Every structure is written in structure tokens, then in C-alpha cells.
């Protein structure tokens, strides 16, 4: 089964799982007959492309400076060349962040224009593999770390791109740490080399809390598992034990026998974060959208807190936990 994480995660996964179970039944029955797939040519809808904002601000140890990635949406296509992908980035926009006292303009930084060591550094910080960046990746970033995010404060984003105006707001929530972490044998048949990661949290009662986590394995980038966000409606005020899922690495095939389990000997950095409600709604609907395919799917619209565009402007309160996978 999908990760027994916080219960909401479970229920969301369950719905997604239910759909795939439904498909499983179908496949069982249909596996006796050749199922048929034919390529479907979509007709393009003639509508203006929209600007997509992926903007984040972090308060915590080793926090990334505030940054915003600006791209454009594209009508359904068959394949895009690296040059066409380059053209997706919105250049020369004026991106500012206001914290109620000062306004900071973010600097536009494109990878192709960076010296190699800076390139490497920026790639690592953004969770990208510097050797496999084939696109002129551009980001608007607070290079001088002028913005110092604090819990409880709101940050207002303002973007002027051509004749388009975009704004959004987010709040850095108070941080809720994990109570403890420990390793447990894999469920079912134990395996020497695999363990599951368990966590305990004491959810603050009477307030709405939302969580997201990232995992870094050895020298790899921070990745998120398929179901990474949770609210606390079902566990409000409770002390709750749950399992953390190892995210699938880039290029890793899905294997049910090793899914979500950690390999002994690996070094793990867990980034456990608190986020606000709008930020949670974005990732929640994003994950539903990605998991939702097939005949019993619904058309999930990804929620957004961006006025004038798509995407999210989200704040994180973060904490880091470093572990070694061992019994």
C-alpha cells in the first residue's frame, strides 16, 4: 500500500489508489483480451498562454534565498526541443518581494550566463543536476539574501512581465518540528538492506497545521515523494506515528518490493516543513492532478494563489534532520 503517512495523505492516496484499483480490476478482466491503445490527436484550443509562477521563500537552517521561476504554459504538443523549452522562460520581468517594510527586487539569473562554479552551486541549491541541464534555466533570485524570512510575517510578490501584472501573498507559518525519528523493519518480509523510516509528531491542537517534507539521499538533490503534503484535520492535537516515504529518484522505475524504503548505509537529510493553507492547497491539487488518470478520473484543477497567473508563491518554515540508515 502507499505510505501510511499522516492520515490525510492516506486518504488522498486511497482515492488515487482506488482509481488504480478500479483499473486493476479492469486490467484483470481485460488481460484476457488485447487492450487497445490508439494515438489520439488533440485539437488545440486557441487561448492565450498563461504565466506560471513557482516562487518560494524559506525560513530555517541552510535556507535557500527567495526565488521565483517564471515560465509560460503551452498548448498540448508532441515534443519540444531544448530551444523551445528555452523560450518557455519569461525573461526581463520585474520581480519584487515586499515584507511590509522593504521591497527587494530579485535578480534574473540564467544558467548559460553563469560561470561554471556558480552554475554548479546554483544547480545544487535548486536541486538540479548541473551536468544534465540542457536548457537555459532562468530564475529570479534574491542573490544578496536581503530578505530574511520570519515566522508570522507575510510576503507580497509583485511581477511585471511585459504588459502583464501578477501578484500573490504568502505567510511564513510557525514551525512544528518532529518529535522523533526511528528506523523500522520493512513491512511484510524483512530484507537485510531495506528499512522504513518512522516519525512521530505532536500536532498543536486548535490550529490548522499543514506539512510538507523533502528527502535527500546521499549527495542527491532534495526530492519530494508522490504524496508529500498533509493537513491535520484528522490528527489535530494528537501525537501521531507515521511512515515517511523515500521519494523515487530521477529515472528510478517503480518497484513495489522496494517502494518507499531506504537502503542501509545511505545518508539521509530530511527537510520537514510547515506551510500555510494556500500553499497546501496548491501541492494537494497538484498531486491529485498528477495521480489522476484513467476512466474513473476527475478533471482536477490545480489551485493557485497567484492573481493573474498559475502556480504558487509559497513560504516554508523548515528544519533539517540528518540520519544514517542503520538498524
Amino acid at each position, binding site marked *: 500500500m502507499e505510505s501510511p503517512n499522516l492520515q490525510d495523505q492516506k486518504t488522498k492516496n486511497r482515492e488515487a489508489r482506488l482509481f488504480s484499483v478500479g483499473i486493476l480490476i479492469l486490467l*484483470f478482466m481485460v488481460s484476457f483480451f488485447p487492450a487497445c491503445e490508439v494515438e489520439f490527436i488533440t485539437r488545440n484550443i486557441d487561448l492565450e498562454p498563461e504565466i506560471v509562477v513557482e516562487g518560494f521563500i524559506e525560513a530555517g537552517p541552510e535556507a535557500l534565498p527567495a526565488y521565483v521561476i517564471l515560465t509560460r504554459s503551452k498548448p*498540448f504538443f508532441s515534443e519540444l526541443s531544448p530551444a523551445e523549452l528555452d523560450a518557455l522562460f519569461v525573461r526581463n520581468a520585474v520581480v519584487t518581494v515586499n515584507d511590509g517594510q522593504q521591497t527587494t527586487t530579485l535578480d534574473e539569473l540564467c544558467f548559460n550566463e553563469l560561470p561554471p562554479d556558480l552554475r554548479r552551486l546554483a544547480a545544487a541549491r535548486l536541486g538540479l543536476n548541473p551536468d544534465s541541464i540542457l*536548457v537555459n534555466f532562468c530564475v529570479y533570485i534574491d542573490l544578496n539574501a536581503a530578505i530574511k524570512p520570519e515566522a508570522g510575517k507575510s510576503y507580497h510578490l509583485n511581477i511585471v512581465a511585459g504588459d502583464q501584472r501578477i501578484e500573490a501573498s504568502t505567510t511564513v507559518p510557525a514551525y512544528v518540528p518532529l518529535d522523533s525519528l526511528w528506523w523500522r523493519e520493512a*513491512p511484510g518480509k524483512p530484507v537485510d538492506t531495506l528499512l522504513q523510516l518512522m516519525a512521530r509528531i505532536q500536532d498543536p491542537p486548535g490550529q490548522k497545521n499543514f506539512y510538507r517534507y523533502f528527502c535527500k539521499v546521499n549527495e542527491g538533490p532534495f526530492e519530494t515523494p508522490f504524496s508529500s503534503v498533509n493537513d491535520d484535520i484528522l490528527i489535530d492535537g494528537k501525537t501521531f506515528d507515521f511512515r515517511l516515504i523515500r521519494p523515487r529518484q530521477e529515472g528510478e522505475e517503480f518497484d513495489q518490493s522496494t517502494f518507499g524504503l531506504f537502503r542501509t548505509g545511505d545518508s539521509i537529510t530530511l527537510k520537514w516543513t510547515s506551510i500555510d493553507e494556500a500553499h497546501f492547497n496548491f501541492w494537494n491539487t497538484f498531486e491529485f492532478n498528477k495521480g489522476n488518470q*484513467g476512466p474513473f478520473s476527475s478533471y482536477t484543477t490545480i489551485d493557485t494563489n497567484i492573481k493573474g497567473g498559475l502556480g504558487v508563491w509559497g513560504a516554508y518554515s523548515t528544519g533539517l534532520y540528518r540520519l544514517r540508515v542503520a538498524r
Partner: protein
Amino acid sequence: MILSTPFLLNNGVLMKKAFLYFLLLTLSLDLLAQQKTFTLSGYLRDSLSGETLTGANVYVRDRPQIGTSSNHYGFYSLSLPAGEYAVVFSYLGFEDRIETVRLSQDQKLDILFNPGIQLEELVVEENKSLEQVQSTAMGRVDLPTDQIKRMPALFGEVDVLKALQLLPGVLSADEGGAGFYVRGGGADQNLLLLDEAPVYNSGHLLGFFSVFNSDAIKHTSLIKGGMPAYYGGRLSSVVDIQMKEGNARDYVVEGGLGLIASRLTVQGPLVEDKSSFIVSARRTYLLDLAQPFIRKTDFAGTNYYFYDLNAKVNHRFSDKDRIYLSGYFGRDILDYRSGERDFALRMPYGNNTATLRWNHVVSNKLFMNTTAVYNGYRFRLDGEQDLFSFRLNNGVRDFQLKLDTDYYPAPGHFIRFGANVIHHRFTPNILSGASGETTFTNDYKPKYGLESAVFFQDEIRISERLTTNLGLRWSRFTQIGPFRDGDKVYDDFEAVKSFDGLEPRLFLTWMLNPRTSLKFGYSQNQQYIHLVSNSASTLPTDVWVPSSLYVKPQRGNQWSAGWYKTLKDGTWNLSAETFYKSLRNQIDYHETYTSNQSTEIEEAFVFGKGQAYGLELFVQKSRGKLTGWLGYTFTRSWRWFRDIEQGRKFPASFDKPHDLEMVASYQVSRKWSLSANFVYGTGRPFTPLRSVYFIDQDLVTRYGPRNSARYQDYHRADFSANYTPKPDSKKAFSGSWTFSVYNLYNRKNPFFINYDLDSDLSAGRAKATAYQVTLFPLIPSVTWNFKWKS
């Protein structure tokens, strides 16, 4: 305490009023009666099995407009002035009976019908098919089960609901799905009754098979053109399915062994001609057969099966009293197990119904039926892995008490009146579970409601050409406690919120000539319970919800008109019907809804309106070696919601502008019969992609306007052949074979579209493909049917 609460008091007052009006009416009818009339009444039955016949015609041979038909329990009553009459009793598939009746006092006359000769036309019976032309029932179709059994079917299984979907005006949205949509109404707007018990979930295997085992079914009728006041609680249609009572003379064991499922029916007398029983069961076993292989894999314990059980027993105490007890139990069970990671999932769901009925003939003009019903639908999902376990369940449970009276006061009047009350319990998706020592739950509580109605209708022959059915139904729904809304707590049975409404039903038939008629109808309906589905298909996880503080009842109005003609000795029937329907308080989910069991479902609802209109053309040949029909329907079904795309009007997910259906059955010889059907329909609407964009290096989909694109047109032909090796055998045991092919020319009909997005932005990779997936290719099937009769 119950009597003191306001709603029942109101009910009581209204019921008193209705009773008074009725009294006045009958009094005036008696006064108006010019001549003294006498009543001929009795029961109409099949001579072989003793089963009563529903809707058999009784009329005076020389004046066919003077007649009546038998009710649901085979009872008829005809009042005539004193005199001598040749009275015709007829029912399709049986030989006519003509009895000479000397009426100088009230008379009882029961008739036993002999089966008619199927192959050749011996006697031309003009008036059998006039029933459709003459009756005031609009948009009504009666399907005797043996007609359904001759049609080809998916995996060799004959299905009542599939057969209904081959009629004009009834649309199926999905490949293989049992859900159906009548004249632009949603899937929850059909009142599906099995021996008077409402059935909430009509599909097995996510809807590919219906829950109705045709071996246990005697008669099915569909009303789509505005239901008379006798029915209520849903907006769009009534599918009234009657189970067989059980052969009152002989023991019969029959069944079939098929590739996917098998069935067995046992029926017979308990006391000859007085009481009988029938038990019918069906089960799939495809995966059961595979168990020895599955046990060896990591998926040991994984299985899927469904079963149905229908049972009925009845006893005739006297000519005046009869009781029936019937029940249905059905389940789908999915077990999924993965041993390696100790993961288990179990999903059982299904319906149970139980009905107890008492027929009482009060007088030869007054027939009364009292019914008590229990029905329920339950869905459960259990999962566990290691320390973690959860349970999700939802369902509906009803208790109902119903009283119906058929009154035949004078020639030219057929009155029905009655009342019913239902106690509902709705269980929303209750989630509970445990992780190690900690338990959690979304702590939802069931909601309770009391739904009641009184109705009165009179089918009046105003003149030789003009008949009308005037009816009025008054219905009420009250959400009752126990219930908690914020800080306010409601006690058991305390009223939380009430809704009520008057539902007039008016129908008119005008005979242009003895073979042609025009009909008009107007009906207004209320619906207090709702099924809101989040996908284009209905799923067992969909939840039935009641009207409440935040959810108003659905309302519908339908205007319809039609032209009907019988040609040439009744062999051919033609009809053309048109309708317009307006719907209010339709429910859908808001645009960024994700099915998260921790928020109350009502908070996700948005409300809007709907509209549907169309034309249905129908040609049917009901006699001869070749029988069948051809139907064409044009319908548009629209919805709009203020909170969805700013109120843009979009086609409903089952909107199908053009729908053509042809069904044919040919009796080649005594051993062989063939049947085929062909369907063609406009492709279903779907929501296309507007664009894709990158989030976190991955492509995600952005959808365009809802339902603004369409799949390719859907068409398919099915074929089957029935072979009876010894049709004239007098032996107790007989068998036959059915060979069928579904999707004869292997048309790749679209089932859904899958978007394959392969991307990694920084790595410069972005590929997207859309695939159209087809579910059923050509599927052959073989079933062996058997019958043993004592």
C-alpha cells in the same frame, strides 16, 4: 413524541384533507352514475406457472374503448351496465380468451392464459397492440423478460438494464456501464424499484453488469415520459421491476453455465396453487478459477467476485388476501493482497432489500396493497499494512411503509391513491483507522431524514376519444435528528429542516382514430436525495446525500407530446415523442475539489440548473418470425452552475445528440433463433486540455472548458444465436446453447483518453502523447442453459 412533532402533524392534516376529497368524489361519482352497473373482477394468470400477469387487457369485444387492464398483482375490475357481453382477455405472448358474460350481478371471473403459438400468426389480434395507443401512459415501455432474453449481451449475460438502454430516450454513457440517463436526467434521477424496494446501486464490477438477474424477473416497465402521481422521489424515470412469484404448479430448476458467470433458479409450489417460492442466484467465478495459480504468486488471496441472490415466497390465503415476502442480496467483493510488503485491501459493497406485501381485495372495486420495505446499500473499504489500518464506509438504509389503493368506482374511472413514508439513514464516508497505538477518525455522523408523500390520481375516460390521467402528489422531506450543527444539538426525530412541494401530473390522450392517438403530458417532480459523482462514470465510492440545511431538493418539470400509431393488425407500432425538461438545484463539485475524506462533502457542492429537450422516433415490429425495433433519439442535455466557469452552459457528461438503435430477432426454425443489435451514437463529451505547464520540472495538465470536446462516435454491433437441440422434447430436462459475440466488427470505441507526459525541464526533455484507450474488443461467449421441470 413522534406525533407531536410538526411534520407528521402536517402530514396527518393533509391526509385527512385528501381523504375527505376522495370521499366527496366517490359520492358524486355514485350519484352521477346514470345506470346501475355491475362489476366483473378477478385475477389473470399464466396457466402453466400460475404467475399473475401485469397489464393484461380486458375489454368488450365490440366496444374496445370500454376496458381496463390488470394491475401489478394481476387483479382487474370492470364495471358495466347490466347485459350480455363478449369480453376479451388478452396479453402479448398468450392466446386471447373471449368469454361470454351475462352481467346481472357482480361476478368474479379468474382467467388462466395459455401461451400463444410463437412461430406463426394464427389469429389476427387487432387490439393487443392498441394498448400503447390507447393508454394515457406517455413514454412508457413494458419489457417482458422473454423478450430481453433473446437479445445478445455482454459476456453472454442477459441484462435488463442493458436492454432498457437499447430503447430511445434511454442513454448509457459508458462502455459496458449499467448506469443510465433518461431524457437528460442524471444517473441518480431514476427510481429503480425491485418489488417496490428502491435499489441504490445498480451495478456490479463498477457498473459493467447490473444487479438484476433476469431469471428471477417477471416484468420490467420503464416510464420516461412523466411518471403518474403513483410514483415519486426521483425526477427522470421509473424502472419498475417485478420478480416472479414462483411456479405454483410445478417444480422447476433452471440455470446456465457461462464463461464468466453462472446462474441457478429453483422455484415451485409450497402448497399447490396457494403458495409458491422462487430462489435465484448468480455468481462470477473467473478469478475463483484462477485461485490455484494466484496462490503461488505474491498476490495470494487476491480475488474479485460478485453474487446476487433473489428469493421470494408468497401465500394466497383466499381470493381476497395474499401476502408476498421477497428479498434481494447482492455483493461485489474485491480482495487485493500483496504478501511481500504485507499489504491488504478489501472492498465489499452491495445492496440488500426485503419487501413484505399484503394484497387485500376490499370489494370488487377496491384493491388495496400494503407494503413494508427495508432496503440498504453499503460500501466498505478496508486496508492495512504493518502497524497501519483504516476503514472507509458509506451507505444508505431505508425503512418504508406504503399504502396503495386501486379503485374502480364506475366505468370510465380508474382511481389510485395512497401514501408512503420512508425513514432514511445516510452514512457519509466515515473514515477510521489506527497507526500503532493512535486511533483517528473523521468522526462523521450519519444524517437522518423522513420522506413522505400522499398521492391521488384518476384516469378518466371523458369521451370515446379523450382520456385523461389527472394526478396530484404532495411530498415532504424533513431532515431529523440526531444531528449536530455547530453548537446546536437536535434530538432523535427532532426536525432540523423541512422541504415540501406539490407535484401535479397531467396526461391526456386523444384518439384520432382507433389506431392513432396524440398524447400530451406535464409533470412536476421533487427529489430529496442525491448522488453526486466526481467522475464521468459512477463509482461505488460515490455517496448518496440527503437534502439538508445546505442542500436543497432537486426539482424538475417535464412537458411532453407524442403521436402513436398501430398499423396493420397490430404487427407494427410507430411513435414519435418530443419533450422539454427543466431542472433546478442540480449539484456538482466545485472546480478545485479533491476527494479528501476529512472535509464534509456538502462543503464541496455547488448548485445550478439543467435543461434537456429532444425527439424520439420509434418503429417496432412485434409479431412474426422477425421481430424487433428501430429507434432514433435526438437529445440535448445541458447544465450550468454559477460557480463553475462563471455559469457557462456546458453539455452534461452523458449528452448524446444522436442515438440510433436497432434490435432484431429472427426465429429461423424451432431449433434456431438469431438476434442482433446495432447501436450508433455521437461521441461522449469530455474536457480537453487547454495547455500543459511545468511545475517542479514536471508537466501538468490544465483543462479547457468543461465538456467542450467530444470523443469519436460510438458504434457497435452484437450478435447471438440460440440453439435448442430438442425443442419438442417432452422430457423433464431440456437444454439449450447461446453463442454470442459482443462488438462483432471489433470497433475500437474510445473508453477514455490517457495523457502520457514525459518531461524533465532542466534535462531538456518534454514529450507528450495522448492515447485513446478502448476497453472491449470483439468478445465471444458461450453459455449452456438448462431447465428441469417436475
